[in-house]
């Protein structure tokens, strides 16, 4: 008998870790992984609410989130590979040609 709030707090913590990683990491792949972590946290709260309100739509929506995450991961990694080929670095601080 786990209260629903525990699942939500865990989901919030995962999301917060994702945001923190997104902001403090310098490696572009780690930033990307933090995005995936955020998506996972959101998935958890979807499933928790689906269980609480007995609505299967929550679980169905998790699928869509996963599919979108997969598509975004594929394209994002392709972009990262292109950036690495031209810039020879994975450090986001050094990809700053457009900076003033």
């Amino acid at each position, binding site marked *: 008998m786990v209260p629903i709030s525990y699942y939500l707090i865990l989901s919030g913590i995962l999301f917060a870790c994702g945001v923190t990683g997104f902001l403090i990491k310098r490696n572009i792949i780690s930033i990307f992984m933090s995005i995936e972590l955020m998506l996972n946290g959101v998935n958890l709260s979807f499933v928790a609410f689906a269980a609480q309100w007995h609505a299967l739509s929550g*679980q169905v929506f998790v699928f869509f989130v996963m599919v979108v995450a997969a598509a975004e991961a*594929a394209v994002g*990694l392709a972009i990262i590979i292109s950036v690495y080929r031209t810039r020879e670095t994975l450090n986001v601080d050094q990809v700053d040609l457009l900076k003033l």
Partner: protein
Amino acid sequence: MAGAVNLLAQRHPINSALSLVVVMGSLAVEYLLLGAEFVAAVQVIVYAGAIMVLFVFVIMLLNAGEEARTKGSKVALLFGVPGMLVGSILMGWVLIERSGDKAVPAGALPGAPKLIGWLLFHDFLLPFEVTSILVLIAIMGAVVLASHPDTDQGKKER
């Protein structure tokens, strides 16, 4: 949660990737506890088994080393850490207060594959089709982005 914190703490991206896999595995177990067995299986197969493998590939291919130390910001540390603590405590307190004692027993909503399939193909048919087009666009985009710029343009059919 340990996996998530480890993701932040590790400097080499491959270790972060592996901790993310651990996070996804434990999330799959959480889904099982909530009764969403199909979602748990799909989480393992798709997320931990394919997307993270893709991440691991790219990390191994690009062979990037450890992360460089950045010049931290003292101001951010001064305001950020207490601010985050306050914010999270507030959020947690609100959540616990508002949820009352609505507990969720283990395996509350059995997400049988048949029921989920029914929903997917009846109520959520339009999003389903749209996401399939999205995946197609993603595939085309990835292929175009990752191909070598000089050698693949104008290559004849072999």
